[in-house]
């Protein structure tokens, strides 16, 4: 992770009280922007990233040299058109792309925080990122958008700041992390913590790294982002650069090789402790419980126009859970649109080239902006 000191940051001097009770201050939020804020300051879109995302939503990520994580959707003339809109995206706290997280140094001990970093929540992440509005001197955002954990942040944002965004687009997400979601996250965490190199989270100070554990966590999670049909069509039982089975535990099948590759490239760009913290934040997310079982109360003070999108083959954040948000909004007469997009690409659909999704996203954003 070279160049991490060159990325854009704001230092938040306003103290932030976390849900765990701890107060943090003078902490960094790393961000990136695309496009230009217009004079009326009415074209700003705040994008929230998912579990393993970062602030580099479009263009080329300067650290990984790969395309930004939402390049299909964000950029010049894309669904979220950076010729027209000013896009802001920041790294969540707990992350490892420059915002305050477990890879930061504890100034009192001069050691890397590791698991002495406080447990953060989606609420904390959103409250921390809200400081960007002050920094850019934006009174009201045009739009908040995000998929998966990004969608959860969208919901929490509207809950916390009811009229700070004209439109909100939560995609492939949920208002309350399900037992199945928690179970998969726990699998990932246990994989990391079972790695002998994890050293109770202190690996960075000991020049060690739980690569294996993090890689297995990523492999398991990656399966949940795809669909059975998608996997079958892409890989089937195809063999990896061989004509016959080798009668060994080598990666005989292409799917094995693919997952191993996904795991190995992930460890180069992601911190294992960050993975623990962010999955924990997702598990703790329950906007329904925050309102004693009545999700509608989360949005009752908001005049925001919502559009909710789910995908047919997404079994991690299924349509039914997205629809629960629609139902809660309809119950209070909020302005909400909803569509389930047909796709075989599973939960990952929102990150991929799914033309109907991108077209719908583009149409909703542009027609809403023209209503301004």
């Amino acid at each position, binding site marked *: 992770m070279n160049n991490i000191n060159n990325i854009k940051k704001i230092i938040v001097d306003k103290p932030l009280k976390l849900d765990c009770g701890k107060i943090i201050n003078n902490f960094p939020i790393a961000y990136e922007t695309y496009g230009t804020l217009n004079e009326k300051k009415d074209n700003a879109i705040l994008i929230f990233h998912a579990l393993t995302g970062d602030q580099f939503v479009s263009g080329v990520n300067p650290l990984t040299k790969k395309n930004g994580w939402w390049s299909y959707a964000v950029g010049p003339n894309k669904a979220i058109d950076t010729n027209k809109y000013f896009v802001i995206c920041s790294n969540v706290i707990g992350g490892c792309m420059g915002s305050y997280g477990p890879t930061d140094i504890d100034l009192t001990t001069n050691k890397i925080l590791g698991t002495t970093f406080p447990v953060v929540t989606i609420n904390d992440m959103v409250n921390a990122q809200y400081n960007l509005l002050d920094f850019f001197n934006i009174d009201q955002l045009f739009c908040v958008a995000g998929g998966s954990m990004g969608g959860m942040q969208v919901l929490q944002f509207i809950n916390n700041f009811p009229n700070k965004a004209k439109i909100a687009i939560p995609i492939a997400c949920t208002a309350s992390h399900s037992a199945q979601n928690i179970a998969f996250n726990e699998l990932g965490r246990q994989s990391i913590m079972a790695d002998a190199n994890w050293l109770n989270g202190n690996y960075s100070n000991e020049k060690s790294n739980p690569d294996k554990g993090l890689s297995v966590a990523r492999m398991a999670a990656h399966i949940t982002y795809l669909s059975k049909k998608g996997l079958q069509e892409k890989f089937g039982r195809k063999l990896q650069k061989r004509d016959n089975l080798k009668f060994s535990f080598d990666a005989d099948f292409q799917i094995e090789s693919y997952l191993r590759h996904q795991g190995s490239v992930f460890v180069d760009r992601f911190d294992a402790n960050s993975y623990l913290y962010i999955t924990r934040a997702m598990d703790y997310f329950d906007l329904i419980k925050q309102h004693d079982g009545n999700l509608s109360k989360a949005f009752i003070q908001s005049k925001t126009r919502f559009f909710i999108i789910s995908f047919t083959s997404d079994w991690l954040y299924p349509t039914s859970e997205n629809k629960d948000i629609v139902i809660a909004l*309809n119950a209070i007469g909020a302005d*909400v649109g*909803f569509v389930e997009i047909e796709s075989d690409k599973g939960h990952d659909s929102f990150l991929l080239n799914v033309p109907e999704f991108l077209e*719908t996203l583009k149409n909703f954003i542009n027609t809403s902006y023209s209503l301004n």
Partner: protein
Amino acid sequence: MKQEFNIISNLIEKNTRVLDVGCGDGVLMEFLKNNKKIDIRGIEISKNNVQLCVGKGLTVIEGNAEKDLTQFPDRSFDFVILSQTLQAFLNPEIVINELLRVGKKAIVTIPNFGFWKVRLHLLIKGTMPITKNLPDEWYNTPNLHMCTIKDFFNFCNTRKIKLDKALAFHNKKTSFIKNSNLNIKNLSAELGIFLIEK
């Protein structure tokens, strides 16, 4: 089509909340939005149509009127519109009940199966009628529960559903349907338009 929209538009008061059930590609919603100052929403079963609506800047949710109207609270809309889709539901009675729960008033339009051309078609040809309003063959029609103006009129009366307005539409002309002229209108009108409330 345009005439039917005009009639519906005239039945709706301004500054009201309106729900278009089975809004299709949003033509009626757009028409009403441009004609009246109203807050209009739609619910539509076809993904493709929902996407077309979004492109028109309309607020539409994808959903099945037979199941998904339950999410709307009682009397949360001033008007609920069901334009020429009642006959396509598995259980029209449940849908009507839901319309009257969700809306203070409902506007229901039905293609009239009692129209003389339809009757004549069946009488002379002996095959299921195909007309301008009913263009599909019996084996591929989405219409499961065809009814006549008289059927719907009687349906409302037996269920104590108040018929605020019952209109017959034919040849660009609209007229009132009453008890006294019911049989004639049932024969002469292509379309019935009803403003009902519970």
